[in-house]
C-alpha cells in the first residue's frame, strides 16, 4: 500500500493500518483533518468543531500505539452526528431548543467508538431532530453537498437528516461519521453524496444517549467512503446495552472478516413494487445494472413481491410523528435548553419556549403526531398504521423465504437544489420511499454508490437483509462496490 499524498484521502481501513504501522501518527492525521475541516467551512458540515479535544485524543492514541497497546480504531479521526450526546461537548440535535445543551454523559455508541480508540473531530450538522431529507431544517443553516452537477455552481443539498455526516465524509473531512436513520437518514444522504451508509437491524446499536426522534425506528450506523470502512465502524458502534431495553443481545460478528465472501450462490430478490411511476429512467437503469453485476458475480436473481410497500410512507408519517410528538415533549424550557424570556406563567413558558425553540418542520410533525394520537383519531390512524406495519414486516419475512438479500434503488433521485423541495413537504417526504420500509420492518439496509447521473451526480443502490444479518448485506454491498468501481470524487471547489 502506498501512502496517499493527502492523508485525508485514506480510507478508514488504510488509515488504521498506516497508524498501527506508525507510518503516520494519529496526531499528524488528525491535524490534517482539522485543517481540511477549517478549509471546508463553506460546506457548513460541522455545527461544533472540537480540534483541541481531537488533538488530545490523538496524543493519547499515539501514546498507546507507542506502547504497542493500539485498540481496533486507535487514533482514527471521525465526525459525530450532533444527535449523539457527547460528554462536555455541546449537543444540539440541529435545534435551537438544544443550542446551549452540554450533556453530562456520553452516548453508548460514541463511548464504544472512544473505547475502540477513535478520535472525535467535532459534531456534524443535521436536520433538526433528524426530521428532514435535505439538511435544510437545521437551526444551524443547511449543509451544502460537496458534489455539484457538471458545469454548474448551483448549491445542492447533501440529503438528510445525516447531511453533515455524509458531506463531511464525502468531502474528506473525516475518515467516517456516525449517523442515524429513522426513515432513510443514513442511506439517502449517503446515496446522494457518493458515500456508503448502513442502517443496521433495529436493536443492533444502543439508542442510549442518542437524542430520540422516533424510538421504534431510530437506529445508529456509519457513513463511510467504502463498504469495508462501514463494516469496521459498525462493529465498533454496535453493542447490546442494558441501558436500552430495545437493544438486542446478538453477538456482533467481525464483519470485515467475511466481507470478501462474494455473492456466488446467493439469491438476490428484486421487488416489483419498487418500480415507481415518474422515477427518472436513470434510477431504473442503475437498478438493472446493479442486478446484472450481482448476477455476473454468481448470484441468482429472484423476482419477489412486497405487496404492502405502497403503505410504507403513509405508515411512517403516522408512526414517526406520533412518537416524536411524545419524545419531544421534554423540551419545555424548564430544566435545560432554550427558555423564552419575559413569560407570564407556565403555559406561556411552554408555548413561547417551544415556539421559539422548534423550527417549522419539527412543529409540523409534533402537530401531526399529536393529531394522530388524539382521542377519536387513534384507531383510524395510529392503530391502523401499526397493523400495516406488521403486514410490511410480514412481506419481508415471506420474501426472505425466497432470497438472501433484496436489491432496490436507494433514492428516487440524485441530489437536488437547495430550496427545490422545501415548499411542499410531501415531495420532500417522497425521498424516503425506498428506504423507509427497512425502518418499519427493523431490517438492515446499506446504500452503496453505484454510478453517476448524466449530470455527474452520484446515485446509490440499496441492499436490504434479514434481521441481524448485516454480514450478508455488507458482503453484497462489497460485491456491488467492486463491480461499480465508483472512483469519482467531488472537486474541492470549497477550498478558496
Amino acid at each position, binding site marked *: 500500500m502506498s501512502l496517499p499524498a493527502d492523508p485525508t484521502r485514506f480510507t478508514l481501513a488504510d488509515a488504521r493500518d498506516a497508524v498501527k504501522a506508525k507510518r503516520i501518527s494519529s496526531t499528524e492525521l488528525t491535524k490534517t483533518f482539522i485543517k481540511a475541516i477549517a478549509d471546508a467551512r463553506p460546506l457548513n458540515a460541522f455545527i461544533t468543531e472540537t480540534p483541541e479535544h481531537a488533538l488530545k485524543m490523538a496524543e493519547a492514541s499515539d501514546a498507546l500505539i507507542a506502547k504497542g497497546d493500539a485498540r481496533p480504531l486507535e487514533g482514527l479521526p471521525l465526525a459525530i452526528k450532533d444527535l449523539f450526546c457527547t460528554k462536555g461537548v455541546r449537543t444540539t440535535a440541529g435545534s435551537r431548543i*438544544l443550542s446551549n445543551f452540554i450533556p453530562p454523559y456520553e452516548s453508548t455508541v460514541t463511548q464504544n467508538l472512544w473505547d475502540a480508540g477513535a478520535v472525535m473531530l467535532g459534531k456534524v450538522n443535521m436536520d433538526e431532530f433528524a426530521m428532514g431529507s435535505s439538511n435544510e431544517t437545521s437551526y444551524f443553516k443547511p449543509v451544502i453537498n460537496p458534489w455539484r452537477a457538471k458545469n454548474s455552481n448551483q448549491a445542492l443539498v447533501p440529503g438528510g437528516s445525516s447531511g453533515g455526516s455524509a458531506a463531511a465524509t464525502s468531502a474528506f473531512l473525516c475518515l467516517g461519521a456516525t449517523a442515524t436513520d429513522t426513515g432513510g437518514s443514513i442511506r439517502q444522504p449517503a446515496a446522494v453524496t457518493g458515500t456508503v451508509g448502513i442502517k443496521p437491524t433495529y436493536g443492533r446499536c444502543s439508542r442510549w444517549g442518542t437524542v430520540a426522534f*422516533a424510538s421504534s425506528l431510530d437506529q445508529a450506523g456509519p457513513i463511510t467512503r467504502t463498504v469495508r470502512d462501514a463494516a469496521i465502524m459498525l462493529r465498533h458502534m454496535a453493542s447490546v446495552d442494558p441501558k436500552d431495553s430495545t437493544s438486542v443481545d446478538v453477538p456482533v460478528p467481525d464483519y470485515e472478516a467475511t466481507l470478501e465472501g462474494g455473492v456466488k450462490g446467493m439469491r438476490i430478490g428484486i421487488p416489483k413494487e419498487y418500480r415507481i411511476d415518474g422515477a427518472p429512467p436513470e434510477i431504473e437503469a442503475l437498478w438493472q445494472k446493479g442486478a446484472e453485476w450481482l448476477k455476473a458475480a454468481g448470484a441468482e436473481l429472484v423476482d419477489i413481491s412486497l405487496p404492502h410497500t405502497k403503505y410504507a410512507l403513509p405508515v411512517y408519517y403516522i408512526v414517526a410523528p406520533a412518537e416524536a410528538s411524545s419524545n419531544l415533549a421534554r423540551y419545555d424550557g*424548564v430544566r435545560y435548553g432554550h427558555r423564552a424570556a419575559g413569560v407570564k406563567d407556565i403555559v406561556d413558558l411552554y408555548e413561547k419556549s417551544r415556539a421559539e425553540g422548534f423550527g417549522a418542520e419539527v412543529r409540523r410533525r409534533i402537530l401531526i403526531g399529536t393529531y394522530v394520537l388524539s382521542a377519536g383519531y387513534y384507531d383510524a390512524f395510529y392503530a391502523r398504521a401499526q397493523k400495516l406495519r406488521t403486514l410490511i414486516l410480514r412481506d419481508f419475512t415471506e420474501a426472505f423465504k425466497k432470497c438472501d438479500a433484496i436489491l432496490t434503488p436507494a433514492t428516487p433521485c440524485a441530489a437536488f437544489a437547495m430550496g427545490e423541495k422545501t415548499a411542499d413537504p410531501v415531495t420532500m417526504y417522497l425521498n424516503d420511499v425506498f428506504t423507509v420500509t427497512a425502518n418499519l420492518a427493523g431490517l438492515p439496509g446499506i446504500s452503496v454508490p453505484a454510478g453517476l447521473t448524466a449530470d455527474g451526480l452520484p446515485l446509490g443502490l440499496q441492499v436490504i437483509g434479514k434481521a441481524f444479518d448485516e454480514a450478508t448485506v455488507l458482503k453484497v454491498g462489497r460485491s456491488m462496490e467492486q463491480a461499480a468501481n465508483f472512483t469519482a470524487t467531488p472537486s474541492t471547489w470549497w477550498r478558496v
Partner: protein
Amino acid sequence: MNARSAKLIEGTTGPWEIVIGLEVHAQVLSQSKLFSGAATEFGAEPNTQVSFVDAAMPGMLPVINEYCVEQAVRTGLGLRAKINKVSVFDRKNYFYPDLPAGYQISQYKNPIVGEGEVLIDLQGGETVRVGIERLHLEQDAGKSLHDQHPDHSLVDLNRAGVALMEIVTRPDMRSSEEAAAFLRKLRAIVRYLGTCDGNMDEGSMRADVNVSVRKPGAGLGTRCEIKNVNSMRFIAQAVEYEARRQVDLLESGGTIRQETRLFDARAGETRSMRSKEEAHDYRYFPDPDLLPLELEQAFIDRIAASLPELPDDKKARFIKDYGIPVYDAGVLVAERELADYYEAMARGADAKLAVNWLNNEILGRLNRDGLSIVDCPVSADANNAILAMMADGTISGKIAKDVLDIVWSDGGDPREVVERRGLRQVTDTGAIEAAINAVIAANPQKVEEAMAKPKLIGWFVGQVMKETGGKANPQVVNDMLKTRLGIADGG
C-alpha cells in the same frame, strides 16, 4: 351485595344508597425507582434523588426495575387476583413541570394484574367482598412547590419516577365506613406483603374516591371522582359530604355532571375541578422504549411460594387454634406487628388470658403513652414471662401488673424484677399463718362479727394481704382463714 344492611341517606323523596369505588395509589416499597436506579427514600433534600432518566435528559431511556414488577405481582397475589403474563407500558402524555418527560409511563389497556378481591369485616360481624378491577404499575410525578419563592414555583423531582401501584376497585362499597374498612384492609394486606408501607401521612398511600348515589335497587348513578383524599378521616368526610350534595342536587331537580372534584380538608367539602368535557386527552400509546412485559410462570410461582400468611388466613387460624373471639382476632391481625407480638407473647400461655392481657394492659399503656406496638418498651418475650409467672402462681395478677409497670418504665427481665424485689407470691403456710394470727389478735371484735356474718372474710383477706405486702397467695389466705374462723365452704 344488597342483602347487607347498607347505610342509607334519608332524603325528602325517600332513602338513597351511596355507591363508592376507590382508586388507590400505593407506593411500591423498593430501593430504587420504577425505571431508574435513583433512590426512593422519603424526606431527602430536594432534587438529590434524581437520575438523568428521571430528569428526562435527552437520549435517556427507561429500564424496568425487576423488583418493582415482583412487588406488583406479590400484591396481585395478595389480592387473590389474576396475574397477567403479558402487560404493556403506555405513555400518558400531558404537560406539567413536575412531569419532566411530558409523559407518565403507566399501564393503560394491559395492566400487570387483573381481577381480584378483598374481604372486609364490618362492625356488625358482616363480611363484604370488594372486587378489585385491576392493579397497574406507573411512575409517580415530582412535586411542584408554590410557597418557597415570591415569584417562582420550584420543582422537586425526588419523587419523579418512583413506582406506584394503582389499585382500582369495583363500585362495591355502600358507606364511608365500608370505604374506610376497605382501605384499612388493603393497607394491612400490602403491609403484610411488604409491598407498600401504607403511610398515608407521607403520601405513600393515597386514594381517589368515586361516589354516586341511587335509589335502592336502581342502576348506577353518575359518579364524581374526588381527588386528593389523603387520610381515613377525610375519606369519610368526603364521601358523606359528596353523597349529601348529590342527593340534595337530585332532589331539587338537578342532574349530576360527571366530573373530577377536589376535597378541601379545611372546609370539609368537595369542589369542582374539571368536567368530563374539560378532561385531558392523554394520547395514550404503547411506550416504544419498553418491550411488552412478559412474566414466566416460574417467576409468579416463586413469588406465590414466598407469600407470608395474610390477614384473612391469620385471623381464621387465631380463631381456630387459639379460640380467640372473632372481633378480637380481627383487631389482632389488622397489624402484622401486633399479630406477631401477640403470637410471641402467647407462646405456651392461655390464649384468652394473653388476649386480655394484650388488650387491657399493653394496648392501654401504649395508648396512654402515644406509642405503637413496634415502639412498645416491653418485649413480647418479657410479657410471655409475666404470663408464665402468673400461670404457675409465682406472682398474682396484681403483682403482674406491678411488674409490667416496672419493666415498662425501667426495663429489665421480669423474672429478675420479681426475684430482686421479692415479689414472689407467698404460699408458705407458716408465713401466712403468722400474718393471720397477727390480724386475728389485733381484731377480736371483727372475728366475732365474721363468724356470724361469713361475708366479712373478705375484710380479713385484705388485712392479711396487706400484712404480707400483697405477696401472699390470696386463695391460700382465703382457705386458711375459713378454717381458722370456722366458716364453711361456700359461705
